[in-house]
């Protein structure tokens, strides 16, 4: 029987996912495993990673490591160990990140440092480790940075988060230029507000009145992790083989108006 047409298949692909212990990262792990990928799952939260492993298909095929991604010396070692066990990498989802709603007048240097480390530097150096010679597939592949609608559009008290996400949006474009010669595609994805564990306690979701306002900004209502995970499957699959340097907006219409 002829094999079913599926341009979004991830069969034979090896995908690294950071922030895989919860939220969007976890959903990406689940969906990618269902599409046939072998996974390298990274997160600081060991218990959360273990829980993710109970949700993915074929858990025996995947590799997990509880690692602090800001331990920039340890990360390349972990990637090397993972490649030895699972094979050369064909894709990376830089999902790990944190969010805040903080006014300018109370912001401190330490807070900015923390946000740039966790949201920007970790993604940059993980990408560096993954694309080091010997780690990435010689056939090339796909890297996705998690920007945000807040990386290009303003919201009160979202300056710190927005700056980090704008940095990822910009960085992805230059990396697309730099890595094209290796047939590595680099794109960003810009979600609108997704209800996840990292933001469900923030005022714009936790407070009923503010949540109503947030929902009203999105033509299709708030998103869920599946909306983003499925968009990532497209960017990781051969269906997007001619797509690089782009920013995929998945925001329920938030930035349309």
């Amino acid at each position, binding site marked *: 029987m002829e094999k079913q047409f599926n341009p979004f298949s991830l069969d034979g692909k090896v995908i690294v996912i950071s922030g895989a212990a919860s939220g969007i990262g976890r959903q990406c792990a689940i969906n990618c495993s269902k599409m046939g990928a072998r996974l390298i799952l990274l997160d600081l939260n060991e218990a959360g990673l273990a829980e993710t492993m109970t949700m993915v298909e074929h858990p025996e095929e995947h590799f997990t490591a509880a690692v602090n991604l800001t331990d920039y010396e340890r990360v390349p070692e972990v990637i090397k160990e993972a490649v030895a066990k699972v094979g050369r990498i064909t894709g990376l989802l830089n999902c790990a990140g944190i969010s805040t709603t903080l006014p300018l007048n109370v912001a401190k240097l330490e807070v900015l440092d923390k946000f740039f480390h966790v949201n920007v530097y970790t993604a940059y150096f993980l990408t560096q480790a993954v694309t*080091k*010679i010997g780690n990435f597939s010689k056939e090339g592949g796909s890297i996705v940075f998690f920007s945000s609608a807040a990386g290009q559009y303003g919201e009160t008290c979202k300056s710190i988060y927005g700056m980090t996400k704008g940095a990822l949006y910009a960085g992805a474009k230059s990396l697309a230029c730099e890595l094209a010669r290796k047939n590595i595609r680099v794109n960003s994805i810009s979600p609108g507000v997704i209800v996840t564990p990292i933001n469900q306690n923030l005022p714009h979701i936790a407070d009923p009145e503010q949540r109503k306002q947030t929902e009203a900004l999105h033509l299709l209502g708030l998103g869920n992790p599946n909306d983003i995970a499925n968009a990532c499957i497209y960017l990781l699959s051969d269906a997007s083989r001619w797509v690089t340097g782009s920013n995929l907006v998945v925001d329920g219409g938030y930035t349309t108006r």
Partner: protein
Amino acid sequence: MTINKFIEKFAEAVEVEDASTLSANTEFRNLEEWSSLAYLSVIALMDEEFDVQIEMEDFKKLKTIQEVFDACTKE
């Protein structure tokens, strides 16, 4: 830094997968991996590891990995 260690770092910068294929006498411009990006990586290697900033005209005169190493380690 020894020349052997330098060759390892050079291989990493230029993205030569097997550093054992290189020697001090390797003429690096003939490498398949040599490119404008590789050039920038070697310049960065010289700067970061040896605090040596080399002009492009001077770099153009270097032919072998040994010559790059010498440019890094000369007083």
